[in-house]
């Protein structure tokens, strides 16, 4: 026989007991390795998602609501042969099938050409012609269509002019196309193409870029360049800048023959300030601002005498007239019967956000009347305004503002016929700026005398002064960002290990306990081995080796279970998310190194637990082992344990007091730490109590004293039961109280819904205020409700539904005044004092940062930030927009967004077109009617509406799923506790067989012995549950104080009740069962 044989024989002999120990190891391996596999798999799945959605794309050149030439792609490739550039025209739309019965909103309509075919490695995309489309599989499933079927695609109308710019018609917001599905593309064929960092698979429609341009009335335009290169973003930027031309800024150069001038105007109506500033650098630049006024009036003693309706008025250089002077052409002067020196008034509309029209008027003195053949009488001074400048008749005007057609006279029609939009009046440039300067720009054109204009110089100065960012062009290493976002997303390994920590501890404690019990069973053997001359370390090695076999067996079992565990968790998450993210995102990815790491760590941890058991046991000297007596703990260890006990309690009290009384916001992590420390402290206090009880002298000897003696006889076992129950209760109660009940008070303004009934989102922006009474009549809205409209800049989804680490969530511009008193805040920046965060949104910090609010979940998990941190965006003007997070809302429907005030939003995104997000509040009794009406009226906008409560639940379903998993793990912890209790109970009763028999022999009734046992074990059960409960409540105080935790109290109460009942049943059952055996006979027979 060899030592190994001895160990193996021992392992096999005690196989049942050893397998029980292995169970503890298996559970810890399962939890630990499972967590690691989950982390690996989530990272892998997200990385895979990045490759599926981007194909070969490494960088993205993008613009928002602007367009550049497709040829730029070819030019960039020519500029740098290491770059492959693919132009696409990416728009949004709505897809409708089955006669309108089936509909998909927020569909990506992607205009592609043969270059895209290369990136996607599928020739199909090069073959799309006319109304042929390729669609993603999820869209085919949603619309229940297949190849060869037809569907209607309503595409958001793209315009070269910002849709909300003054005098731009808003009538046509979408373009329809009846398309035929040529191919349903799979994810491997770029079916999941998306430029957003999200695992959500968008609905995709691919169409030829030429056809999409045609539908949008564009020529050769694109709005995204997909770059594939090994180079870095700086090199890409260099090439983009090299290839940038005035045409990409929408600039149009033409010669005005009548005045012998060159004019630079823009397809966007108003020249951006940076472009104007650059053009001013050219010699003899004459800036022009032409505006559409409602009326030109002649005033006589401030009384209106006559009016010319709807005319263009242009600016002249300041040298021609002062700010209070005006020049009329002779037609206008004749019409008004005006003469030099008369008072002339201009009535015009200032167009505010959401097309809010503000009537304004300005007075002038008529300086001069110019003949109709004057060079200033020039129709080309009027910018191109579709629907207005190209109208055949005045009555056909579609100016994006209300036109009173009755006010238009025949002579006005005649003027239009003869002179088109030729300005009838001229004011100084300075005065024009004061009146009509707007967020879209200050000039409609810049003119240069032909003699001094040099086109080459113009192109040169454009190339040197204008950067891609000035035109809102962003260049990002999108693949790198995607992979970074995937790798730095929610750390699922950490999350699962963190929240499974207590179950890990419980299983290790159980392993240690069971092994120790094993040792105790064989205590005589330990002594015998010593007597036979085995050294202590030999004996230790025997048991350690046996422990290694146990750990290995348990670890391998745990490893197998961990794979099922991961698959089970992913199945839950995938089925939960499928409707939301439209794809099975998560795939189990098993990396052998991870399995090995999990196994190794579990074995090591278990071995340490086993080693500690053996060591503690061996502290009893060989002679003592023979006599079955405990040794006294070393004094040094006692002091250390006391120090840990006091430190844990003191530190937790300090943190608690500081958080509750001195901090402005409750930090959940610190509370959890406090609870954890208190748990350790209380458990050590219990240990101390056991020691005290052991040495306490009690005069009266009775059943109580007997129970107390028994309780303290084996402190380790008693403490283990308490630890297991405390940990299980702590985990279950803390997760249970964190589970959110979001429906309970969803009607309240301070809840996560803000008191709103519906959350709606449109694909096409709504350009007007839907609360406006006149507009409601016009659109046929009769239900009584109010809607809060939000502007939106697209960004990544930063909600819990996105597992990636997000840098730039979608940005919302809000009417912050209307949000006052709504929602609750979980965190708030100290610097803003007691001001309600919504009220502070219009402020600006000294360093230029702009206050912003987001859902606390977004801040913490999506962004990985905290209140006070800065989120950076590139605004439309190419500048860096720095947003300081001033507050985080408690769980709300704003998950996924960052909110700033409308004021700051429009400063930074001046050409933003209308609103896409809506919060609707109405009488709860009419909710269905309101919902039906809005769905119907805004159907063509791609209106998608859901109840705010449902939205909230959907967002937090993920959080609640995690919590359910951890609750289940907590329950597993309690099962472990129960197993521990049962084993200890059975073992102790077995050991005390003689003692019980003697008690029976000397006349104790079975009932009184039963009572003794109950007292003993109920004490342990209640102590464990009480310690776990108190510390869990402390750990989750922020959750208890949250407005959304009403139902959690009942959950917690039920959970605690179940724990106690479970324990009571086991204790009572096992005790009773053991006493029913013939204890007297069997017990005394030994003696």
């Amino acid at each position: 026989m060899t030592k190994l044989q001895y160990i193996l024989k021992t392992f096999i002999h005690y196989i049942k007991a050893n397998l029980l120990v292995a169970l503890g190891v298996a559970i810890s391996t399962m939890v630990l390795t499972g967590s690691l596999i989950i982390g690996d798999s989530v990272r892998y799945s997200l990385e895979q998602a990045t490759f599926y959605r981007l194909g070969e794309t490494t960088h993205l050149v993008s613009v928002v609501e602007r367009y550049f030439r497709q040829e730029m792609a070819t030019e960039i490739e020519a500029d740098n042969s290491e770059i492959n550039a693919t132009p696409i025209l990416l728009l949004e739309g709505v897809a409708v099938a089955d006669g309108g019965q089936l509909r998909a909103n927020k569909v990506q309509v992607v205009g592609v050409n043969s270059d895209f075919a290369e990136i996607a490695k599928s020739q199909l995309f090069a073959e799309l012609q006319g109304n042929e489309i390729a669609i993603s599989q999820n869209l085919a499933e949603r619309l229940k269509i297949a190849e060869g079927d037809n569907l209607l695609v309503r595409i958001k109308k793209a315009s070269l002019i910002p849709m909300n710019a003054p005098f731009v018609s808003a009538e046509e917001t979408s373009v329809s196309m009846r398309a035929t599905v040529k191919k349903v593309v799979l994810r491997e064929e770029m079916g999941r193409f998306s430029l957003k960092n999200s695992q959500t698979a968008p609905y995709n429609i691919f169409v030829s870029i030429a056809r999409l341009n045609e539908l949008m009335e564009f020529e050769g335009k694109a709005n995204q360049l997909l770059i594939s290169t090994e180079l870095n973003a700086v090199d890409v930027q260099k090439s983009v800048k090299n290839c940038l031309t005035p045409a990409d800024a929408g600039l149009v150069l033409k010669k005005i023959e009548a005045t012998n001038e060159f004019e630079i105007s823009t397809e966007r109506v108003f020249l951006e300030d940076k472009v104007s500033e650059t053009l001013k650098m050219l010699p003899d630049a004459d800036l022009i601002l032409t505006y559409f006024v409602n009326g030109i009036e002649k005033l006589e003693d401030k009384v209106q005498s006559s009016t010319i309706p709807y005319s263009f008025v242009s600016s002249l250089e300041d040298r021609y007239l002062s700010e209070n002077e005006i020049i009329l052409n002779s037609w206008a002067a004749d019409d008004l019967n005006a003469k030099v020196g008369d008072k002339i008034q201009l009535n015009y509309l200032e167009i505010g956000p959401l097309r809010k029209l503000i009537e304004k008027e300005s007075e002038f003195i008529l300086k001069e009347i110019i003949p109709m053949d004057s060079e200033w009488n020039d129709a080309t001074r009027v910018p191109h305004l579709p629907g207005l400048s190209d109208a055949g008749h005045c009555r056909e005007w579609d100016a994006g503002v209300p036109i009173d057609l009755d006010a238009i006279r025949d002579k006005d029609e005649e003027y239009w016929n003869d002179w088109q939009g030729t300005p009838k009046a001229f004011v100084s440039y300075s005065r024009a700026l004061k009146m009509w300067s707007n967020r879209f720009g200050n000039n409609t054109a810049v003119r240069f005398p032909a003699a001094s204009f040099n086109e080459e110089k113009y192109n040169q100065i454009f190339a040197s002064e204008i950067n891609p960012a000035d035109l809102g062009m962003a260049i990002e290493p999108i693949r790198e960002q995607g992979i970074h976002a995937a790798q730095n997303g929610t750390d699922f390994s950490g999350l699962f290990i963190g929240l499974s920590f207590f179950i890990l501890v419980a299983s290790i404690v159980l392993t240690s306990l069971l092994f120790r019990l094993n040792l105790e069973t064989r205590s005589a053997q330990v002594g015998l081995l010593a007597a036979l001359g085995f050294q202590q370390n030999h004996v230790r090695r025997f048991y350690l080796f046996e422990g290694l076999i146990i750990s290995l067996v348990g670890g391998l079992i745990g490893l197998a279970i961990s794979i099922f565990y991961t698959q089970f968790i992913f199945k839950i998450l995938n089925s939960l998310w499928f409707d939301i993210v439209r794809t099975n995102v998560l795939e189990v990815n098993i990396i052998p190194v991870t399995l090995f790491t999990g196994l190794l760590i579990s074995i090591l941890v278990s071995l340490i637990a086993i080693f500690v058991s053996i060591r503690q046991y061996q502290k009893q000297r060989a002679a003592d082992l023979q006599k079955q007596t405990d040794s006294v703990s070393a004094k040094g260890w006692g002091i250390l344990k006391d120090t840990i006990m006091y430190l844990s309690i003191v530190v937790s009290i300090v943190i608690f007091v500081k958080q509750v009384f001195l901090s402005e916001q409750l930090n959940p992590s610190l509370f959890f730490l406090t609870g954890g420390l208190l748990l350790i402290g209380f458990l050590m206090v219990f240990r101390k109590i056991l020691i005290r009880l052991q040495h306490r002298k009690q005069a009266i000897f009775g059943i109580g004293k007997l129970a107390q003696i028994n309780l303290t006889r084996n402190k380790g076992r008693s403490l283990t039961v308490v630890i297991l129950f405390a940990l299980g209760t702590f985990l279950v109660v803390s997760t249970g109280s964190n589970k959110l009940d979001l429906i309970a008070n969803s009607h309240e303004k301070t809840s996560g819904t803000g008191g709103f009934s519906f959350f709606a989102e449109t694909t096409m922006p709504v350009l007007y205020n839907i609360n406006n009474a006149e507009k409601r009549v016009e659109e046929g809205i009769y239900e009584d409700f109010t809607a809060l409209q939000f502007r939106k800049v697209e960004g990544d989804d930063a909600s819990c539904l996105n597992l990636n680490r997000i840098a730039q969530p979608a940005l919302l511009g809000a009417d912050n005044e209307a949000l006052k008193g709504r929602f609750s805040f979980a965190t708030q920046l100290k610097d803003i004092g007691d001001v309600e965060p919504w009220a502070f949104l219009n402020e600006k910090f000294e360093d230029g940062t702009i206050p912003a609010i987001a859902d606390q979940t977004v801040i913490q998990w999506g962004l990985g930030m905290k209140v006070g941190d800065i989120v950076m965006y590139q605004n439309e003007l190419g500048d860096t927009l720095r947003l300081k997070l001033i507050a985080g809302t408690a769980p709300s429907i704003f998950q996924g967004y960052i909110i700033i005030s409308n004021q700051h939003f429009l400063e930074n995104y001046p050409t933003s077109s209308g609103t896409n997000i809506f919060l609707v509040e109405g009488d709860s009794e009419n909710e269905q009617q309101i919902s039906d009406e809005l769905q119907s009226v805004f159907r063509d906008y791609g209106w998608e509406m859901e109840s705010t409560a449902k939205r909230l639940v959907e967002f937090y379903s993920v959080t609640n799923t995690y919590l359910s998993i951890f609750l289940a793990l907590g329950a597993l912890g309690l099962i472990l506790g129960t197993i521990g209790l049962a084993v200890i109970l059975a073992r102790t009763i077995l050991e005390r067989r003689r003692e019980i028999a003697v008690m029976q022999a000397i006349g104790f009734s079975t009932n009184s012995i039963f009572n003794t046992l109950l007292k003993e074990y109920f004490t342990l059960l209640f102590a464990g549950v009480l310690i776990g409960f108190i510390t869990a409540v402390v750990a989750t105080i922020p959750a208890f104080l949250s407005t959304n935790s009403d139902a959690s109290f009942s959950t917690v109460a039920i959970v605690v009740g179940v724990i106690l009942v479970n324990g009571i049943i086991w204790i009572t059952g096992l005790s009773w069962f053991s006493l029913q055996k013939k204890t007297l006979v069997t017990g005394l027979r030994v003696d």
Partner: protein
Amino acid sequence: MLLQLQNISKGYGKIGAHSFRSVLNELNLEIDKGEKIAIIGPSGSGKTTLLNLIGALDLPDSGEVIFDGKNITGYSKKELANFRNQHLGFIFQLHHLMPQLTLWENVLLPFLPQGNKISNQQKEWAEHLIQKVGIWEQRSQKPSEMSGGECQRTAVVRALINKPELILADEPTGALDEENATSLSELLIQLSDEENITLVTVTHSSELAGMMDKKLILKNGKLV
């Protein structure tokens, strides 16, 4: 002189404390090689404690244990373990056989601390002893399959397997019936004689005590 105990004192509890209980008090003992000694005394007189001290399973509070001229009280734990393995054999009241091992394996167990592979010679010696005590037929059985007498005989063989100079037996017949007790007592004496092994036994059995060369009574912490 094989063993010499000089002024051995041993007690339980903290010295000086009220709860301290002195068990052995300035005890002296000398045992010659091959001598057979029975230690008798009432329960709680410290017999097992004395045996544990002789067997280096416990250390005295004061005094010296000298074995074959060497003071073993100064030995390190490793040296003590080695000492027990090479020079001593133990027999307990309960056989303390490893339930997971067969009779054969239990007997061979003391060879394992020596680290080497068990030699054929050692196996032959084991077989010889097992044959001698008459339990060869049971060699493949586990303790649970053997009678109390067989188990205790196995324990005797295990005590002899390393050819010790001294066997310490703590109530070796205490758990046996009269017939088995007599048989085991005779066996112990016979084997000690044959192998010239010194035997120290703690016993309540007058029969076993009567077979010894010397009977010592432990009283008030001293041998008389």
